[in-house]
């Protein structure tokens, strides 16, 4: 395979990443609005903003600041989603983390402004990348850690297996994505991202493309889980069918059960 062919394959992978995220984002946004779940609305918007940023920059040439603004929106909304989903009434650590991510996001935006309007040096490039790592790592590792911690709680409970699987998938794929800024360290400064005539740049582009496409497919499958997969995961699980009690009938049943307990 020639470098140009590799480049085309990696561009296709990025295309799959962007389309998958957009589909997932729209799906979550619709679900969130329909079920009145603000956290799902926010994560839907987060994963719609990422493709908007990339399409705006790479197709409509709106620039790196445009792209970074939407990435910042995605990352901050993702942390808010994690906090609203896992950490309501659970102390202030989640708020501290959100503040840290907002500060790191501002730092990234500042670097992008300098790169466009100021004097950009290799030194500044590596400082930006050094700040990008904790930024990305905190956002997606926080989600991964939260999903994994919750999974540890639910795995021994009588809960639908497909839900437990969703926890696992969120934990695994967020963990993978939390490292997606590492290839940036090896990108030769001053070269075009994915330049097929620069083997290092092409490898960095390819590594990132593989990482992000794995994330997008795994993360989307977790949310838009196909019916056949749910059925397969639930095949040994006997779902509870509740009898539809009338209030009087239910209260009599409870009183009877309680009196039986008291007489024992």
């Amino acid at each position, binding site marked *: 395979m020639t470098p140009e062919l590799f480049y085309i394959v990696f561009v296709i992978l990025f295309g799959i990443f962007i389309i998958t995220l957009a589909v997932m984002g729209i799906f979550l946004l619709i679900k969130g609005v329909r*079920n009145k779940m603000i956290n799902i609305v926010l994560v839907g918007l987060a994963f719609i903003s990422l493709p908007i940023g990339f399409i705006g920059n790479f197709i409509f040439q709106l620039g790196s600041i445009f792209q970074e603004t939407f990435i910042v929106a995605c990352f901050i909304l993702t942390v808010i989603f994690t906090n609203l989903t896992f950490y*309501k009434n659970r102390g202030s650590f989640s708020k501290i983390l959100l503040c840290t991510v907002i500060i790191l996001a501002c730092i990234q935006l500042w670097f992008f402004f300098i790169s466009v309007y100021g004097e950009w040096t290799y030194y500044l490039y590596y400082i930006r990348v050094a700040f990008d790592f904790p930024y990305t790592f905190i956002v997606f590792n926080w989600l991964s850690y939260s*999903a994994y911690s919750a999974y540890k709680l639910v795995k021994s409970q009588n809960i639908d297996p497909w839900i437990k699987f969703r926890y696992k998938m969120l934990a695994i794929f967020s963990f993978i994505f939390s490292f997606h800024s590492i290839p940036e360290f090896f990108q030769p400064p001053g070269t075009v991202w994915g330049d097929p005539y620069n083997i290092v740049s092409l490898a960095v582009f390819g590594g990132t493309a593989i990482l992000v496409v794995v994330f997008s497919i795994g993360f989307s499958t977790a949310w838009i889980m196909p019916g056949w997969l749910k059925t397969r995961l639930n095949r040994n699980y006997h779902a509870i069918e509740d*009898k539809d009690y009338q209030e009087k009938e239910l*209260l009599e049943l*409870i009183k009877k*059960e309680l009196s039986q307990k008291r007489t024992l």
Partner: protein
Amino acid sequence: MDIIKHLASRLAELINISAPAARGLIKLAIKDEIGPFRPLNQVSFNEFKSTIENSLKKRLINLEIATHELIVQYLVRELTEYQSLITLGGV
């Protein structure tokens, strides 16, 4: 709703009633608190919390459960710990 199933299984253990009866009791308490027309998958964390603290507590008192205060505290703790089930089981 898996969060209801989970809270009900805890409630059933605490007051020694069957799990279906406990689930029914929680569903009745939700109806008392937020009305009969809201689908269960649209009940938020805060609404679950206020349901436990208000209408479920009243129902436990009416059933002469002496430890109602401790049960309410325990269920709120369980809800807080397992809150992600509302989202991950609701989408």
